[in-house]
């Protein structure tokens, strides 16, 4: 029998297990469903909702590509085109990319750390509802004729009251508030979970790489997201609705101020999306090359350094705005510097693959796709860091090509790889490897066919955000190729979805650890039980499932009749106390509804903020109202 025996077949008395089931159950029916606070359920809701938004954003991308397929096309008018590219960017950044990474983190981090839920389960539920309401707000208003049309960044003065009348931009600004509150909830609870709820003896140098990724990402969310809420809600919305003058040059304001604040968030945002993806790459590479990642300390330090440097890059989005040259030079240097910490990680993965015993699964295919595409995107990033080059291609399709290489290559391919890798854990069934590899090759080919020609279009001078172009500029052929590529991506997406739906029902049964991986999520059942672990594990190494049997242990003495988790010290994970988590509750949903009413109203009048505050207050009081003392007796 393998060394994994002790955790995989946890010998737990049936009465003990059924008591745990009762304690951790969310209750049945619609009320129970709305009151859910288990992290797997909420993580999966994030992931599924985000994938629905990915489909919407993808359809918008196809509409744009159809319009640009040939010169002087009349399929979409300029206004509709503006709305669609705004919705595409907004959806992909705020409603897909960040939430899907948060969802993966919410699902996987507690499992990887050997605990039973996140530190603040109700906050977790509340965050999901805020995200959902934000997405609904944007799409309901778009379908009822008030779509924003000023780009995903809503630059002033274009987005100001003078040039963007109507409520579209206001809806956009408040949607940001919803999604950023959600992101900050997840960031807070993940940081605390990672620092305080780790399994005993999982000292800082034993945290799985994916959890390091989520930790760095969460800190970035904490420092970056207040900026975008300030930019959208305080600067933009107040200027539009109550006549403040942040960005009004006639009264001493400055439109560039908005750009500074927006990009102080907007640049870290890219890293917020792709640092969790780097963690996924590490997890996949470790499991499928069957060894620990090469250079763990270098990898962790590079992730942390990425997190810091990312805050020193924002001005490279503004090189064309006429800032002082000394400042620009600094941001050029910083933009090139991040190439170093990124390259350290790439080389460490290559070394891991080189020295491991590689298994070419579908998940690994996506990792190789990531390495190829992301390195190309990184190289064009270094090019763009150079100011003379940037000024030449600023606002052209070269930039569009660059950031799709970075974002799709750097985040979407690892995400898809991660999805194939953790699918057995999510569903208890194996995903079809053959269909997974087919989906990879179609997506890989389609991606390069779509976005590679855009480099050339950009060098030829095709600007972004134009709805059509004259035939004599000779841009038609490259654009047609890109459109064909976009439809190939769509086919790849369909194959992926079909594979997921089919494998969910008909895939081979997966055991707890089908990949013989080393991290703790593979010690839980597939799919995990609501309490994850009947006994919390005591870990003996960085890869607990690969450590010798005599170093593996179990925690005993936790009570099963209430939701107990073990709080451990931040550095060495020595047990400190048994925390009793709150029960499932409808209050997070009610609080989110109350805040949503007020925030939607604030689009029309400032006074609705007071209603939001009052309803939110009532919600929080219900949420925190102390229960009977049974929850805390020793």
């Amino acid at each position, binding site marked *: 029998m393998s060394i994994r025996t*002790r955790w995989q077949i946890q010998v737990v008395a049936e009465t003990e297990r059924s008591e745990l089931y009762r304690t951790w159950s969310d209750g049945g029916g619609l009320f129970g469903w709305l009151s859910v606070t288990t992290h797997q359920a909420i993580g999966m809701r994030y992931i599924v909702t985000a994938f629905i938004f990915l489909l919407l954003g993808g359809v918008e991308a196809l509409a744009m590509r159809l319009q640009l397929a040939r010169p002087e096309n009349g399929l979409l008018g300029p206004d509709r085109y503006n709305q669609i590219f705004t919705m595409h960017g907004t959806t992909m950044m705020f409603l897909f990319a960040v939430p899907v990474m948060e969802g993966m983190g919410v699902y996987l981090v507690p499992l990887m750390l050997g605990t039973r839920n996140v*530190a*603040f389960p109700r906050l977790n539920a509340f965050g999901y509802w805020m995200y959902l309401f934000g997405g609904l707000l944007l799409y309901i208003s778009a379908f009822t004729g008030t779509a924003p049309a000023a780009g995903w960044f809503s630059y002033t003065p274009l987005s100001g009251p003078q040039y963007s009348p109507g409520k579209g931009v206001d809806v956009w600004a408040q949607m940001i508030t919803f999604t950023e509150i959600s992101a*900050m909830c997840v*960031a*807070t*609870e993940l*940081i*605390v*979970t990672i*620092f*305080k*709820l780790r399994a*005993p003896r999982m000292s800082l140098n034993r945290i799985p790489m994916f959890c390091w990724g989520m930790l760095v990402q969460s800190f970035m969310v*904490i*420092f970056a997201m*207040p*900026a975008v*809420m*300030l930019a959208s809600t*305080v600067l933009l919305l*107040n200027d539009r609705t109550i*006549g*403040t*003058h*942040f960005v*009004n040059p006639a*009264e*001493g*304001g*400055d439109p560039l*101020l908005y750009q500074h*604040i927006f990009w*102080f968030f907007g640049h870290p945002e890219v890293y917020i999306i792709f640092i969790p993806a780097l963690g996924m790459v590490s997890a996949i590479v470790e499991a499928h090359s069957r060894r620990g990642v090469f250079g763990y300390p270098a990898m962790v330090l590079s992730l942390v350094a990425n997190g810091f440097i990312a805050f020193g890059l924002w001005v490279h989005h503004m090189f064309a705005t006429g800032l002082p040259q000394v400042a620009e030079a600094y941001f050029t240097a910083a933009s090139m510097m991040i190439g170093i910490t990124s390259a350290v990680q790439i080389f460490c993965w290559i070394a891991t693959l080189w020295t491991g015993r590689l298994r070419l699964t579908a998940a690994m295919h996506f990792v190789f796709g990531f390495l190829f595409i992301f390195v190309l995107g990184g190289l064009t990033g270094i090019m763009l860091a150079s100011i003379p080059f940037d000024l030449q291609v600023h606002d052209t399709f070269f930039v569009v090509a660059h950031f799709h290489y970075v974002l799709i290559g750097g985040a979407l391919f690892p995400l898809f790889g991660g999805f194939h890798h953790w699918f057995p854990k999510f569903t208890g069934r194996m995903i079809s490897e053959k269909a997974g590899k087919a989906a990879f090759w179609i997506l890989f080919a389609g991606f390069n066919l779509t976005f590679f020609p855009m480099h050339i279009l950009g060098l030829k001078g095709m600007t972004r955000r134009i709805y059509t172009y004259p035939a004599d500029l000779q841009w038609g052929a490259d654009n047609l190729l890109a459109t064909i590529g976009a439809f190939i991506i769509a086919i790849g997406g369909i194959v992926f979805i079909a594979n997921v739906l089919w494998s969910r029902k008909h895939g081979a049964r997966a055991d707890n650890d089908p990949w013989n991986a080393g991290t703790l999520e593979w010690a839980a059942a597939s799919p995990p039980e609501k309490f994850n672990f009947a006994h919390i594990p*005591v870990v003996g190494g960085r890869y607990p499932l690969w450590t010798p049997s005599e170093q593996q*242990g*179990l*925690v*005993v*003495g*936790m009570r099963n009749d209430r939701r107990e988790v*073990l*709080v451990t*010290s931040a550095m060495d994970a020595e*047990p*400190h*106390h*048994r*925390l*009793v988590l709150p029960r499932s509750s409808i209050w997070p949903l009610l609080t989110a509804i109350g805040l949503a009413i007020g925030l939607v109203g604030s689009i029309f009048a400032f006074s609705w903020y007071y209603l939001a*505050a009052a309803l939110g*207050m009532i919600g*929080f*009081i219900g949420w925190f109202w*102390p*229960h009977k*003392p049974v929850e*805390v*007796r*020793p």
Partner: protein
Amino acid sequence: MTPSNTLDVAALPPYSISSKAPLWWGQILLCVIEGSMFCMLIAIYFYLRLGVDVWPPPGARTPGVATSSIALVPLLASALGSYWASEAAKKDDRRGMILGLALNLALACLFLLFRYLTWSGLNFNWASNAYGTIVWSILFLHTFDLVADLLFTLVLLVIVAAGRSGPKPRLGVHVDSVVWYFLVGIWLPLYAVLVWGPRVVGVSQ
């Protein structure tokens, strides 16, 4: 399973009213979020100042030095009430919690009275010009946070006074003090910017 492979935690307490509690960490992060927002507001203040020759604009009556400075006394003292309540919460001293929270609330309300006097002394509003916009934004957001936390403090006081002073409300009192220290502490740089800013970096007409 051998005993050497098990770790018995039955003897550990089911809660901790200290900086070891996850909720304490969560509150610290909340303060960091708020803090980064206020830091950015300070940056915006000076960014806007750089964009004009005359700051504050001619005729604007800046927040008064005397009222704003005297107001610091009850504000800083209110943190002592908070500290008293927090220490009492650790020792499960219900009377101490009630007195500390009440002192905190009373002194904070006195501070809000001064805040009202400062604010009503301004002869411009958020829509007057960029200076008015940033001054009103900082005052509004800080006051909003103060009032929100005071209402929560009031709710805690009611809960504790009503006899529900179990570990959860006690932890609530403890972490509430963290937020209050933050709101008091962050006012010091904001006060310096709003009150002394125009006098140090301003150019009069």
